[in-house]
């Protein structure tokens, strides 16, 4: 494959037009960033206020007094460290199981031909369409019968085997050419071998994005832990935050302080995990 040295493919106009275009691009980018960061900014600003200053009308973007003490108080008012630990445990475990079983099952759906495969797959996807509120009670009763209420295991079992991961990985596997698998089969590799040595390494971006999205969704999940976790020691961060909402009033400043703390790990993971699903140079494995 030869690469000709060709003139740059970008449209090169006269200098001022280029500068204008670049400026416009940056302005647009900055405007978009502001829009995207604004609510986060409100969260941070609220976390530094007194509770009765959060919902002033109109919004006060700069707190009248900066209550950095909120960030210290929150660890004392609720067992934040325990909650963070629980959230981390659940998020990591569920992510690991989702990625593992999901990609494993996805290979079966994508590369192994057997009767009823596509029908079964459709049924998988279809269940995502049912709102959880509809089957929440039957599910709870089932878990009650096997005494799994008020355990972390209940949350793990309920969320680690979702269809989302299967669907995502299957689509990704479909874009890996069959010829690759066929060549491997000819060479005598078993299906499991193909999965481990070819599909997994090639699907790093998908695995990474699945891991990230599963982690975020589990970290932010409220309803599941709310229904199943009764003991305070098992609670997650999201439950901890809501404990500031009382019957008639809520301590929003504390809620936002907790929310900011809760968002930080996710952002860090995203910032540093990006390189796993954005590869510098994509390979197809079919060179030459």
């Amino acid at each position, binding site marked *: 494959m030869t690469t000709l040295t060709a003139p740059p493919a970008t449209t090169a106009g006269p200098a001022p037009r280029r500068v204008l275009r670049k400026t416009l691009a940056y302005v647009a980018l900055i405007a978009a960033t502001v829009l995207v960061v604004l609510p986060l900014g409100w969260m941070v600003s609220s976390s530094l206020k007194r509770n009765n200053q959060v*919902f*002033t*009308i109109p919004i006060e973007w700069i707190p009248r007094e900066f209550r950095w003490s909120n960030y210290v108080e929150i660890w004392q008012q609720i067992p934040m460290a325990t909650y963070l630990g629980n959230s981390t445990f659940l998020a990591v475990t569920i992510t690991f199981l989702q990625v593992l079983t999901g990609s494993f099952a996805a290979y079966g759906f994508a590369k192994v031909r057997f009767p009823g495969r596509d029908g079964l797959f459709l049924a998988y996807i279809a269940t995502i369409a049912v709102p959880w509120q509809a089957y929440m009670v039957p599910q709870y009763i089932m878990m009650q019968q096997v005494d799994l*209420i*008020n*355990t972390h*295991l209940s949350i793990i079992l309920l969320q680690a085997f979702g269809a989302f991961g299967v669907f995502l990985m299957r689509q990704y596997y479909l874009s890996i050419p069959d010829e690759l698998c066929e060549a491997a089969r000819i060479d005598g590799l078993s299906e499991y071998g193909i999965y481990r040595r070819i599909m997994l390494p090639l699907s790093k971006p998908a695995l990474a994005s699945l891991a990230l999205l599963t982690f975020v969704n589990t970290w932010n999940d409220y309803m599941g832990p*709310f229904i199943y976790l009764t003991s305070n020691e098992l609670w997650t961060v999201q439950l901890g935050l809501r404990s500031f909402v009382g019957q008639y*009033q809520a301590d929003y400043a504390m809620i936002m302080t907790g929310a900011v703390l809760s968002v930080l790990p996710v952002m860090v993971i995203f910032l540093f995990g990006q390189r796993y699903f954005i590869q510098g140079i994509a390979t197809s494995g079919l060179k030459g």
Partner: protein
Amino acid sequence: MIATNPPAKVRVRRHLVKTLAVTASLALAVAACGGDTQETAEGGGSTTLTVTVWNLAKTPEFNALFQAFEKANPGVKIQPVDILADDYPEKVTTMLAGGDKTDVITQKNVTDYSRYSSRGQLLDITDMVKSMDTSKLAGLDAFNVNDSYYALPYRQDFWLLYYNKGLFEKAGIKLDGVMTWDDYAKHAAALTQGDGNKKVYGTYHHTWRSVIQAISAAQTGGDQLGGDYGFFADQYNMALNLQKNGHALDFGTATAQQADYRTMFETGATAMMPMGTWYISGILEAKEKGESQVDWGLAPMPQRPGSSEVVTFGSPTAFAVNKRSENQELAKKFVQFAAGKEGAEAITKVGVVPALQDPAITEAYFSLKGMPTDELSKKAFEPDKVVLEMPVSDKTSDVDTILNEEHQLIMVGDKTVQQGIKSMNDRVKSEVLN
């Protein structure tokens, strides 16, 4: 990269075995962990009582009651089941559906109570109620279901008017008795000043429909389940006028910005505010922590012209016994304790208004640090009549939804008062009463 492999049959068998082994160990792990039961909210022996509560740490009345009960009954331990207030009914419904055995189920409001009692999930305590002296127990009527009782109120909140004494002085208005709604509107006009983020509103109407509808029903004798809502008109007209003239924060902004009534009052953004008595403990705490500098007072709810009594609306909170409880006698004892004198005393100390009405209790309440001591505040605390916020029936929930939806439409100006009331009439009649 690809090594030589044993023949196909052996390979498949080997991999199958591997897969089966993995699956089996997974299953064993599940079974093992599943058998390790966490202690759920089940009363251990007969000396531990489990009680559902919301926001245990932020709701001092529960701990106050539990400590008092444990002190009066040595050897008894109360184990609270802490459920987040926001979704309390959802979780309790789910728990009870799953056959939960928590002994005492706290009834957050009368609507939830009517649901649990109608499904037969609560223990019948009529005998116990009949054997008590309940003449001074406010709000008991709300728990009467066909002459049977399934819960006892321990707390009764009713609505009155909070006002900012400092702002009133500045405007030169003196409050010396019960005001009418016309007085109220006039005062609101006089008290409104400033604009932008320095604006002070004359009054603040929170977005709950009760602020307009429940007080109107209580003071006109109208029936909120009746299907004929003409009696709402006066109240809506007054509130909309205030909104239009800028004397009260408009509903659209209040909902969109999630206006917090505590913020409005504690930052001095409003001079008056109709609100429930539960807020008293809130403002006391805010003043003590230095979070607010408002010199506040209480006044009776404004009345309709020509009214000789002070009529307001309210809502009781109660304890009930779970029918599936394995500790029923102790549970009943607790419910009775909470509704009785000792329970009332315990919660008065933390600024909560008990259901038991007694001059001694009122005295104790007003001797709390920070309470306003003027005569008007004391008068506000003893309304002549407290009507239940919303009558209880199996239609309550549906009617409540319809009334709330139309309330929003009237207050944002999507419908006129006439149109809105007509909608309410039509919808309730056709969808609920048919």
